[in-house]
């Protein structure tokens, strides 16, 4: 029974994908979208039943389908592990996935390739479920590669624009770099443990296997590199802002709520391994904190509404990695969940705005939308308050837990994280003010067409806004349901913060910091009515930030250009040596045949003569010489 349900959970989106690929063109636009939505909703329903079952019993559901491969003393099974962690992940992957599919029916309604869009979206959900559900690292790797592929397909969905294609390729290549790290990590783990199965690895560690700490650290580091690529951490983060080339629902689903959290899922999954490698943990914490700060600082000055959200995503992912590095996996998971709620809501809200403005994404051409788009504005406001970390919104609880842990373990990281949070509050309210307040700055024609989006768009927004509002309830300080729920999959017990004066002081500082950020945004953009300078008119630090610290240019200069140079160098060698040799062979054959072809003169008599002479000489050779 469990096996069948698990297969239904996995293959419902895949069936949706197949159907939309092969028959989608024949369906009406709404039918293609409804089909895709229902496929994911089925998965959500099954997940929900599993989830309730596991919440009640506390026992993970293990499904083993077949033995995939066997090599001497090493074997890999094809099976699923539906435990507390994977079901939690599936809950929001399929849940938010359903909402975003629903939203896309309306958002993509006028696109000629809407069936293809839903096919890719379903395929993505299928691979994401594979990634989360697998019972060993190799199955996770299948999903890992699959979601990368779908991300590529969807970023480049509007393939007629070359810039979008380039963004898609960039995302794919950067992910490949991470994937290579991940794969090497898997190999090393296979070598160390003779198994890739999570349960078996955990058992081996629990039983105190003697393991070479150097190899273990290298394995953990390689896994972290994989996570860096997928979850957009320094130095592999530059693909995520460019990935905003895809349609907005894609940005919400893949590049905010689900796929980019795969790295966090993987590290949480392997928490027993990372606990053994404190060096790697501190690298993760530092990378996470620095990413949070750098991305937040770039986000301060971006003018494209989706770019701001993209950098904010990178920054929030950085905070999650900070939590992972500090060893508080359950808090990272908590932030993943709250972030999924409010960031999906923000992206969908920005999509609603872009939809109303017919593709306008530059905030300098927006403003005053709160009067016409009341629902979008209200949901956006709630999510913005959540991401800024104001109580009682969900983001406050998760972010605060991360910063509090950082304060107790390493005050420097706490300072970096807090600064990033203040910046977050600033740029999110900057976005809110520029988009929804003051007067409209676009063209008259756009103003004329302004409208609230249809209910297929607003319903997901409302649901997500409610979740962003109350999502913090799953892990309240002092009484955390989430920590208790996740306890079975964590190698060490959850860290518990006492509700003492330090805790309240830190909460106060966090809220005050957020209010400072909001205040600066208020004075700059409401009181003074400032509008960001046009492109090319920025000066000083703003210019550096606007150009993203020139990281793309630096990568171009130190990595891409040298690789091109090496490529052209070797191209010359192959041209000269290999192609020259081949051409030479051709030339020799040509010369010989120019002489040889005169023998074939068409005279039958001559042929016969040669024929008989040949036979005579063969016979002569056989009888006389031998």
């Amino acid at each position, binding site marked *: 029974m469990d096996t069948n349900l698990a297969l239904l959970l996995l293959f419902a989106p895949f069936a949706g994908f197949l159907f939309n690929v092969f028959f989608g063109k024949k369906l009406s636009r709404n039918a293609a979208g409804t089909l895709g939505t229902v496929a994911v909703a089925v998965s959500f329903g099954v997940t929900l039943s599993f989830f309730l079952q596991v919440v009640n019993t506390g026992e993970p559901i293990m499904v083993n389908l077949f033995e995939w491969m066997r090599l001497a003393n090493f074997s890999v099974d094809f099976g699923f592990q539906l435990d507390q962690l994977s079901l939690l992940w599936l809950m929001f992957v399929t849940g938010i996935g359903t909402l975003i599919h629903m939203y896309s029916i309306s958002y993509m309604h006028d696109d000629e390739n809407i069936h293809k869009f839903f096919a890719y979206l379903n395929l993505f959900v299928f691979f994401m479920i594979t990634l989360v559900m697998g019972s060993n690292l190799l199955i996770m790797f299948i999903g890992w590669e699959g979601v990368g592929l779908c991300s590529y397909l969807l970023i480049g969905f509007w393939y007629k624009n070359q810039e979008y294609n380039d963004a898609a390729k960039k995302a794919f290549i950067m992910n490949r770099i991470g994937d290579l790290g991940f794969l090497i990590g898997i190999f090393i783990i296979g070598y160390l443990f003779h198994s890739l199965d999570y349960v078996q690895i955990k058992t081996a560690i629990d039983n105190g296997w003697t393991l070479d700490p150097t190899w273990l650290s290298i394995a953990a580091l390689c896994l972290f590199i994989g996570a860096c690529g997928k979850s957009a951490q320094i130095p592999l983060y530059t693909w995520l802002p460019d990935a905003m080339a895809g349609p907005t629902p894609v940005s919400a689903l893949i590049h905010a709520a689900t796929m980019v959290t795969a790295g966090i899922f993987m590290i949480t999954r392997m928490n027993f391994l990372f606990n053994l490698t404190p060096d790697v943990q501190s690298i993760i914490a530092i990378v996470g904190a620095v990413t949070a700060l750098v991305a937040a600082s770039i986000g301060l000055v971006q003018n494209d509404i989706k770019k701001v959200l993209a950098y904010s995503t990178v920054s929030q992912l950085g905070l999650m990695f900070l939590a992972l590095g500090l060893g508080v996996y359950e808090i990272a998971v908590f932030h993943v969940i709250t972030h999924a709620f409010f960031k999906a809501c923000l992206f969908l809200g920005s999509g609603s705005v872009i939809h109303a403005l017919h593709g306008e994404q530059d905030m300098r051409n927006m403003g005053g939308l709160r009067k016409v788009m009341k629902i979008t504005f209200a949901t956006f406001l709630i999510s913005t308050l959540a991401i800024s970390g104001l109580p009682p919104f969900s983001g406050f609880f998760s972010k605060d837990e991360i910063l509090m842990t950082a304060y107790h373990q390493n005050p420097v990281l706490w300072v970096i994280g807090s600064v990033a949070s203040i910046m977050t509050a600033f740029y999110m309210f900057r976005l809110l003010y520029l988009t929804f307040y003051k007067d409209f700055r676009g063209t008259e024609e756009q103003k004329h067409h302004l409208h609230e989006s249809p209910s297929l768009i607003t319903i997901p927004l409302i649901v997500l806004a409610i979740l962003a509002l109350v999502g913090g309830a799953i892990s309240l300080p002092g009484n955390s349901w989430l920590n208790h729920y996740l306890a079975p999959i964590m190698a060490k017990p959850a860290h518990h913060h006492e509700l003492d004066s330090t805790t309240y002081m830190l909460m106060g500082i966090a809220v005050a910091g957020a209010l400072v950020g909001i205040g600066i945004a208020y004075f700059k953009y409401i009181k003074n009515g400032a509008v960001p300078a046009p492109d090319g008119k920025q000066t000083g630090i703003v210019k550096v930030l606007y150009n993203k610290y020139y990281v793309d240019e630096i990568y171009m200069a130190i990595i891409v250009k040298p690789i091109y140079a090496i490529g052209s160098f070797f191209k010359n060698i192959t041209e000269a040596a290999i192609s020259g040799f081949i051409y030479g062979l051709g030339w020799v054959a040509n010369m010989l045949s120019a002489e040889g072809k005169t023998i*074939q*003169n*068409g*005279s*039958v*008599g001559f042929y*016969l*003569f040669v024929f*008989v002479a040949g036979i005579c000489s063969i016979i002569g050779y056989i009888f006389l010489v031998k």
Partner: protein
Amino acid sequence: MENILQEIGLENYVYLSALLFCVGAFGVLYRRNAIVMFMSIEIMLNAVNLLLVAFSTYHQDAQGQVFVFFSMAVAAAEVAVGLAILVAVYRNLTNIDIDNLKNLKG
């Protein structure tokens, strides 16, 4: 009479066969008329058939003679095809001098 080879020795068949084969071969090489060449080829073929039958008798083994029947059947088929080609050539060229077939060269 048990064996015809006691009357006429085996070597005589070999000489005759070699002679016939040479006649056929020279016929093929020197004549330009396609029908004559065809006949020459048949002579060569029959020289070999003769040799097969002779040795078959010498070894007291019927297999060689069976083989000759097959060879004759194939030869008949081949002649049918060959003559059909020659008819076609004649209709086009009004003669069957093989030197004219040079035109078939690509």
